[in-house]
């Protein structure tokens, strides 16, 4: 197992190096002049030149790259110009916000999608199957920002059931003591009921909008994979041997069908984490996607590079985790490796 882990890590290194080079080049090649942007409205060419020198943008590309690598080696991703903060600090505070939202959404999606998919496969052709089809088609065809806006309009603006879409916590509440950065966990650990309830309320709408979107691939994959397994010989044998339907479905069929579902789960997770930005914009969620997009708009290099790098590392970690989970679920995968 350790060997497998190490070999996977080794293959990840070249891709991370590639990401570092590509992001550096890309942000430099993109049109746009950060010095002119940050010099402000009434700047003279001289003021712009001064800012360019301060930012080190007057140096040649290789020089800038060496400086960037040097900083990176010390864990310094540079400073964001648009928020004025070190990128590392920003990512550390913003990543938990995105991760918390994504995880809650994913959990919600899994809790609904997997039973729905299993049922649709078992009762193929019945109304449950059709419901599953309708729900998934609708979910995948409604863009997240649209459901988000619709939910905010209906549940906040019209019905007043949901709290104002002002971020992770109501404006008049203070954030819980920082432990993990996940407000739900931190407030539960410190027994801060008010903050727990407050952040749960804020989470509800964005998490549901994202969950609806990720329902579709999960439910479809569960259904398809279950159908394939249910049609196979060993299930027929199990049925013929007189095992109860419950045992056949859960112990034999589901366990074998779950592997592709895990793959999709990994993909959906990474996709959600990156595609968060729309939901984050709609719900003023101070997450990492919003941060990256704002940085892109202002040609703020450091956060863009930091974001892409963080995402690359996250994907690598995610893939490793999924490989690991495969091994736990299906011993055959372990042998293959």
């Amino acid at each position, binding site marked *: 197992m350790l060997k497998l882990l190490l070999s996977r890590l080794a293959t990840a290194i070249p891709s991370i190096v590639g990401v570092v080079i590509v992001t550096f080049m890309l942000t430099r090649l993109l*049109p*746009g*002049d*950060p010095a002119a*942007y*940050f*010099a*402000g409205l*009434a*700047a*003279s*060419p001289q*003021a*712009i030149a*001064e*800012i360019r020198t*301060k*930012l080190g943008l007057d140096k040649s590309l290789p020089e800038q790259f060496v400086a960037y690598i040097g900083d990176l080696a010390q864990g310094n991703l540079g400073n964001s*110009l*648009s*928020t*004025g*903060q070190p990128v590392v600090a*920003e990512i550390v*505070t*913003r990543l938990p916000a995105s991760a918390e939202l994504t995880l809650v959404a994913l959990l919600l999606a899994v*809790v609904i999608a997997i*039973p*729905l998919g*299993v*049922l649709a496969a078992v009762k193929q052709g019945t109304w449950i199957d059709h419901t599953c089809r309708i729900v998934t088609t609708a979910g995948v065809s409604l863009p997240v920002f649209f459901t988000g806006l619709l939910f*905010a*309009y209906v*549940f906040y*603006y019209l019905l*007043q059931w*949901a709290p*104002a*879409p*002002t*971020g992770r916590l109501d*404006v*008049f*509440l203070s954030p819980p003591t920082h432990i993990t950065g996940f407000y739900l966990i931190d407030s539960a650990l410190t027994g801060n009921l008010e903050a727990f*309830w*407050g952040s*749960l*309320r804020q989470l*509800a709408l964005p998490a*549901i909008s994202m969950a609806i979107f990720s329902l579709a691939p999960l439910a479809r994959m569960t259904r398809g994979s279950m159908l394939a397994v249910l049609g196979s010989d060993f299930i027929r044998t199990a049925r013929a041997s007189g095992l109860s339907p419950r045992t056949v479905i859960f112990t034999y069929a589901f366990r074998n069908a779950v592997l592709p579902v895990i793959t999709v789960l990994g993909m959906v997770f990474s996709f959600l984490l990156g595609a968060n930005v729309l939901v*984050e*914009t*709609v719900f*003023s969620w*101070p997450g990492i996607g*919003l941060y990256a997009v*704002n940085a892109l*708009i*202002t*040609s703020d290099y450091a956060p863009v590079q930091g974001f892409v790098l963080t995402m690359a590392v996250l994907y690598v970690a995610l893939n490793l985790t999924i490989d690991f989970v495969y091994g736990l679920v299906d011993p055959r995968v372990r042998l293959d490796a």
Partner: protein
Amino acid sequence: MKRRSFIKTTAVAGAAATVAPAIWSEAKAQARNETLLIVNESPPNSMDIHGVGANRPAYEVSWNIHDRLITYGAKKDANGNDHYDYTKLEPELATDWNVTPTSATFKLRRDAKFHDGTPITAKDVKWSFDRAVTVGGFPTFQMAAGSLQKPEQFVVVDDNTFRVDFLRADKLTMPDIGVPVPVIMNSELCKKNATAADPWAMEWCKNNTASGGAYKIERWQPGQEVVYTRNDDWKNGPLPKVKRVIMRIIPSAGNRRALLERGDADLSFDLPSKDFAELRNSPKLTVVGTPIENAMTYVGMNVNQKPFDNVKVRQAVAYAIPYQQIMDSVMFGQALPLFGGADNKFKGVVWPQKDGYKTDLAKAKALMAEAGYAGGVETTISFDLGFASTNEPLTILVQESLAQIGIKATINKIPGANWRGELLKKNMPMIANSFGGWLNYPEYFFFWCYHGQNAVFNTMGYKNPTMDALIDKARFASGKEYEDAVKGFVDIAFEEVPRVPLFQPLLNVAMQKNVTGYRYWFHRQLDFRQLVKS
């Protein structure tokens, strides 16, 4: 697994989560009454207005947490709303001052203190002014606009007396001391946090405040919110009424409007013109729209390129623009027209003012023929995507209209980050753009936008020695001589029309009915100190 019961339980749980009563309601209601909640689109990037690239929201922070030596008085505008008055300078840290032709001497308030309790003295003022003229970038250039350029100009007479020696007679010197840049900082606190490489503590001041103004920063979460509390020991003006101010970033304009309409937010500037036009009729909200001084949205033409090197073509464009349509369907009436005046002449020492152009396609076609372009010509019209909500419909209307006089214009959308770079190159044939200056003098606008020094905002590359001479003269002249100079350059600008003025935009703000006391400031940021929430 019973799917039906599963769905039921989740649905019930979901409903319970949304309708259960809030457990903090009472404490929250209390806090709500004493707090002003502002929702904005973009966050400050620094606590220090002198910092590199400090943005507009950072000016707002600086304005509210710092004092300046002097400030501006107030007047009522045409609609009875509070408006700063650039003709009246009033005390802030300085209780009074004495201006001679060569210097200004300020008496400082004796009991004024910084937030940490240190008394504010003349050496703090000198340190702060020295900092503004030394660190470079925007603060240094803004100071220079008022001929405040060298540390030697700033003299500590004694603890409570400070003198500014003038480099030259410049009527902008005194007004420039009241703009957001020359803030009074706690010099001892800053020096403690300075390093040899960073003698002005620029790094530290980015995230910390060394101020003595009416509000203190309680919490700053970059990119998310700024929370202010009132400085109850503030001596440099009447104690503000609002105890606490929260500025939250809400990136979606639709949600900012929803928050205002639901009464969850108290005030917002950042809404599209259409929303403001609609909210004006809302019984729940007050909308105040103030014409932005010294500002205009215009169509600029590059006078160094064909066909716009020909004044007749430029005049033809000025007669072809569908002005009223732009006012109605782009701005929804949220602007003042700068077209359709009685004639194409100077109408008094104010800027911007109406020119004599109006939509007249027959005249435009005739001018095109006179210029030798009866067969038509091709060009591009560019705009900044950062302001697409106004610029995009505007350029489309202009494009349609120009097609009718034989100018085939292609629209070129430029991302916000590139816009400045493109302006600097000065090779876009035609643009739609806006400009506004802080100091409300015609010659200030012309200095940036028409003068042959060719600043970045002279987007047309316009050079005319006669006009330059008039602008330079107006900067230092007064009385009749001044008025003649202004008349001279305004007339040339209208006749030569390198830029076609379209409208003067409004600075709109929407607030709850119980919020009063809003005052328009030239820096277009919110001053919390005059606001009242009842």
